[in-house]
């Protein structure tokens, strides 16, 4: 995992874990790796991992069992919402760059539609 150095690291750790949850690499109810293990894996400070996990606990996507560590929520609604947020986030980035290239609204839809058709053919 490469971090961008101009965005707070704890936010990037959150994003990294949200993605793992959304992709099902970390499943509902599963225990996530220990703070120190995550810190080593990501080459970051233990404090920074703790801050990220604290925020995720506050949002309910993780919960803490005393003495056992952090677990992914079993609330599938919330996990689906997390996935939707990631998709929205990616789409927002995409739409913003396309708008800079002059593709907006309906024309963006037809450009995307056309692209997907061509891409489908290439794959055949």
């Amino acid at each position, binding site marked *: 995992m490469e*971090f*961008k*150095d*101009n*965005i*707070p*690291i*704890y936010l990037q750790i959150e994003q990294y874990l949200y993605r793992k949850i959304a992709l099902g690499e970390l499943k509902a109810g599963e225990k996530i790796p220990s703070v*120190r293990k995550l*810190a*080593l894996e*990501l*080459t*970051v*400070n*233990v*404090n*920074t991992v703790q801050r990220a996990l604290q925020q995720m606990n506050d949002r309910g996507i993780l919960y803490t069992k005393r003495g056992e560590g952090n677990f992914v929520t079993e609330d599938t609604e919330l996990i689906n919402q997390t996935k939707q947020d990631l998709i929205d986030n990616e789409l927002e980035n995409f739409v913003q760059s396309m708008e800079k290239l002059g593709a907006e609204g309906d024309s963006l839809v037809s450009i995307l539609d056309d692209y997907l058709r061509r891409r489908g053919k290439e794959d055949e």
Partner: protein
Amino acid sequence: MSDNVLAIKDLSYKKNQKTILHDVNLNLDQGKIVALLGENGAGKTTLMRIIAGVAKNYKGEVEVDGTTKEADRKAKLSFTDGLSGFSDSIKIQEVVDFYINIFNDFDENEFEELRKFMKLDPEMKLSQLSRGMREKLIIALTFSRKADLYLLDEPFGGIDAMARKKIINSIIMWKDEKATILISDHFVNEISTLLDEVVVVKNDTILEHKTADEIRENHKSIEEYYEGLYEDDDE
């Protein structure tokens, strides 16, 4: 009682009538990893040596864990002054024996773990060590003490990427929750993801002290921030 592990008030230091440091004020909290950044010759090493009680005859106050006395300070912090007091012909094991004798808080088992992790042979002489191995030994010795403040003076100078990775991992693995580590460097990239705070030394004093998050929340990388503070000097 404050949580400050280090408190420096109005510190100044002269050597041969030349000002090396002036008006230095610095407070560090428990449990942080802090970079001490500045160009070569900016006074980083001198500041570390003063904190450690090695450099004397300074003005002002240096408090570690609530105590200003040099001998007490030395007991509460761990600093390995470049192994400068040891002859090159002695073995790693002999250095370790010396540490065991001198420091009550030196944990032999911990050193064994670190030594294995760093792949150091206790029978090797100091003269046989590469730059990277020497730094690894310094780190292993420094972390084997149980202290509240660890001072690492340019641990990454002139060492290869693998040795650097080992040292960084040892910092993550062996740091106690409440211990604070101050790491000096003139280049920040290699440790930037580790940092809680950044202290910049320039013009013989501490120019700025910020949290890493503060810097990044302004969409700057720590490197950009640090270079920005030195930028005007190039002309």
